[in-house]
């Protein structure tokens, strides 16, 4: 368990600090041989970059990727502040 926490911290910092990703908004959860990524990125290419960086730091882990591409459409409604 302790090792998983340190590994998760290393992976999270790698995603934040590696210039290919610089993602601070992605959660990293390590469970056994799996690492779960979750959160949102701006485009599909960035999802692939996340997996690449994780694989370099921890090639032994299987990446489960729940990261979504954030929608960029027009707003569906509006909020009236009263």
């Amino acid at each position, binding site marked *: 368990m302790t090792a998983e926490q340190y590994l998760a911290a290393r992976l999270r910092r790698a995603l934040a600090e590696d210039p290919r990703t*610089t993602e601070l*908004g992605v*959660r990293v959860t390590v469970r056994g041989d799996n690492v779960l990524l979750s959160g*949102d990125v*701006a*485009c599909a290419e*960035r999802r692939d970059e996340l997996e690449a960086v994780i694989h370099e730091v921890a090639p032994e882990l299987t990446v489960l990727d729940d990261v979504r591409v954030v929608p*960029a459409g027009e*707003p569906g409604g509006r909020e009236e*502040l009263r």
Partner: protein
Amino acid sequence: MIRVGAVGDVHLGEDSRGLLRPALEKVGEHADVLLLAGDLTRHGTVTEGRVVADEFSGLPVPVVAVLGNHDHHSDQPDEITRVLRDAGVVVLEGETATFDVNGQSLGVAGVKGFGGGFAGKCGSAFGEPEMKAFIQHTMGIAESLESALGSLDTDVKIALTHYAPVPDTLRGEPPEIYPFLGSYLLGEAIDATGTDLAVHGHAHFGAEQGMTPGGVRVRNVAQPIIRSAYTVYCVEPAVAEV
């Protein structure tokens, strides 16, 4: 009624050039002004700043921005600011912008903001130089925000920041990192100045809605929260007390 469009944390780069543009082309149908709550780029490079400038230039409504921590990563915030301003985007850091919207006046005061934490659970300007510098950076920015908001004499006043002024809109983020996500000093500045709405970004896992201790509405418009190119808030001027 003033329709305020807002989005933060668009994190544009060459790989996402043009993604927001289709929705932005129609922004005039939804909003009277568009606020950008920082983290416009990924790495804070001038090249990415040009992508942001292209994305938000030539829109049918005024665009007002503050920078975020990502926009500082390459130590070129002044250059990015210049690129954006050259493209017609109003960039605020301790300044204000005012607009006339259908006969009502709108004032926006903007700062990046910074961390430090929230009342009772915050850092102090004490101890090592690094710690003092951290908190003093926030103190200086909060003073600048209060001064800018205080200088506005408009029907509607909005505070635009990247970092959060309240913890409400951080729900969903780990509480341990709240001190890196915002500061109560920003909220205190907002409450001291008769502000109508506070808009921020930065907290991708937070919540959209919150309120300052003084009762000012706070909205977290980080794009992963609002899940569209921008969202819209309709703000009525407060009824003046006689």
